[in-house]
């Protein structure tokens, strides 16, 4: 559905992206990860034909972005990061303008607008001015305008930025509900977001792609050790020392007291070894009181930092 080959964009002397290649199949949700200024927006703007690349090729639904921009734009729904909207327009009027702009046939316009508002949960604000809406609602109007015209590809730039936690969950669910029929590319610099919503993650750093994989495989590939967190009531020093003696344990980090007399430890151990039963028997033999025990997964933040530092080392 989307094929990008050796895409490069320079802003004068400044590098936006360099030699970016990837492809996205029909119906996939792909997360674009990277810190601010890493080239996510640049790539998206090229895909939406806002500006052409300096070098390289990008095809959306079979159309080349530099040759057939109007055809590409007909097949894309885009939400820019800042969700720019006209404050003096009513939501329904605005979506009407979008439908006309995207050349939705006159007979289908009303139902297209209604459907988009329904999906994004903005039916109750249809007759309010966009300028008076809360951030969360504006974001949804932004998604709604992208949905109009039933585009095959959705490109969402930081769709959850600046929202409160509840709104974030709502928008994520909305995006998930859109998957399947459509190909979705969303960018984010918040990593859990990608692991929650995306099937594939593209990590981009300083304008270059550093990793492409599923969130799970990325984690497996990069996890060289496993970790378990324990909360135990007892003498901290003694406990830590005893835990270190278990074979296979690499490191025990005291994370400080949780409540009086209870201390939390992070135990890092070799990946292949299964030491939880060993841990439990040590705890019971020593007559400590175990409050909590959980396996700690590597977060995407950790992965990201790892990928980026590995990249710099090589």
């Amino acid at each position, binding site marked *: 559905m989307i094929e990008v080959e050796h895409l490069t964009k320079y802003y004068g002397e400044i590098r*936006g992206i360099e030699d970016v290649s990837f492809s996205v199949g029909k119906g996939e949700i792909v997360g674009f990860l990277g810190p601010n200024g890493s080239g996510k927006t640049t790539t998206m703007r090229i895909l939406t034909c806002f500006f052409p690349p300096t070098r390289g090729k990008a095809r959306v639904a079979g159309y080349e972005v530099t040759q057939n921009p109007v055809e590409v734009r*007909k097949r894309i729904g885009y939400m820019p990061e800042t969700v720019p*909207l006209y*404050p*003096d327009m009513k939501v329904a009027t605005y979506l009407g*303008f*979008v439908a006309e702009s*995207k*050349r939705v046939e006159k007979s289908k316009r009303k139902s297209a607008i209604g459907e988009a508002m329904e999906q994004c949960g903005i039916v109750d604000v249809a007759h309010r001015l966009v300028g008076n809406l809360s951030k969360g609602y504006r974001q949804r109007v932004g998604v709604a*305008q992208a949905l109009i015209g039933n585009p095959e590809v959705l490109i969402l730039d930081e769709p959850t930025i600046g929202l409160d936690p509840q709104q974030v969950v709502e928008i994520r669910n909305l995006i998930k509900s859109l998957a399947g029929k459509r190909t979705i590319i969303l960018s984010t610099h918040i990593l859990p977001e990608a692991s929650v919503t995306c099937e594939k993650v593209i990590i981009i750093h300083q304008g270059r792609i550093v990793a492409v994989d599923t969130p799970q495989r990325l984690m497996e590939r990069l996890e060289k050790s496993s970790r378990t967190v324990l909360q135990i009531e007892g003498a901290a020093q003694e406990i830590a020392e005893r835990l270190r003696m278990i074979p296979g344990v690499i490191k025990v980090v005291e994370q400080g007291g949780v409540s009086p007399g209870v201390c939390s430890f992070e135990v890092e151990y070799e990946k292949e070894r299964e030491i939880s039963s060993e841990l439990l028997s040590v705890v019971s033999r020593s007559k400590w009181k175990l409050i909590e025990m959980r396996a700690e997964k590597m977060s995407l933040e950790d992965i990201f930092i790892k990928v980026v530092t590995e990249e710099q080392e090589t």
Partner: protein
Amino acid sequence: MNFYPILKKEIRSYFTSLIAYIILTVFLILSGHFFYTGLVQFVTWGGASMQEGLWQYLFHDIRQVLLFTIPLLTMRLFAEEKKLGTIELLFTYPYRDIEILMGKFLACVVMLLVMLVLTLLYPVLIAIVYQVEVGPLAASYLGMFLIGSAFISCGIMVSSLTENQIVAALVTYGFILIFWFVDWNEAAASPVLAEVLHHFSFFEHFYNFARGIIDTKDVVYFVLFIFFFLFLTLKSLESRQWRGIR
């Protein structure tokens, strides 16, 4: 050419933001004042021709009012979209640049037509009590339409260069005034230069129209002026493709 949605949006925006009503009000009060005082003068002093003695002065005055009002209409066309960031979305909808430009330009032209049509009240009022020659009047209206459209093309070009509306209006005033006064001080230019500048002057080319005469060279001047500035605007819109902007 699929510019109708943009045309509609811009006109709606003029009216929902009230700017249309404010500008129309100011325009009509001023032009009404000029009509009334001009008429009193014509009735008092008389004259051989109404075109020479009344309409000519009225149209010169209305042109002045257009000069002040049109940059206020054009300043927001691109500057506001740039400021709001909505231009990014607009450029990613299936429009060609020229369609966006034509939608915005024609929206402003429609506003100009509304203003001019409302001033038709004055000839109509006169026609009730006195005979009015339609031909020369039509020529004058064509002239006002052309000079107004020229102001618009200039204003839209400036608006595409900035995201600050005040800057857009001010620079447009600058452009229009330069083209207005360019040949006023003949002593400051050599005879050849003065002659050349003469042909660039708005003032010069509007003069015949105000007297009720359509001269091809005046029509060509304004049409070329409009096309040239629209062309520049198009190039300015396309500049995002090669400029180092983020």
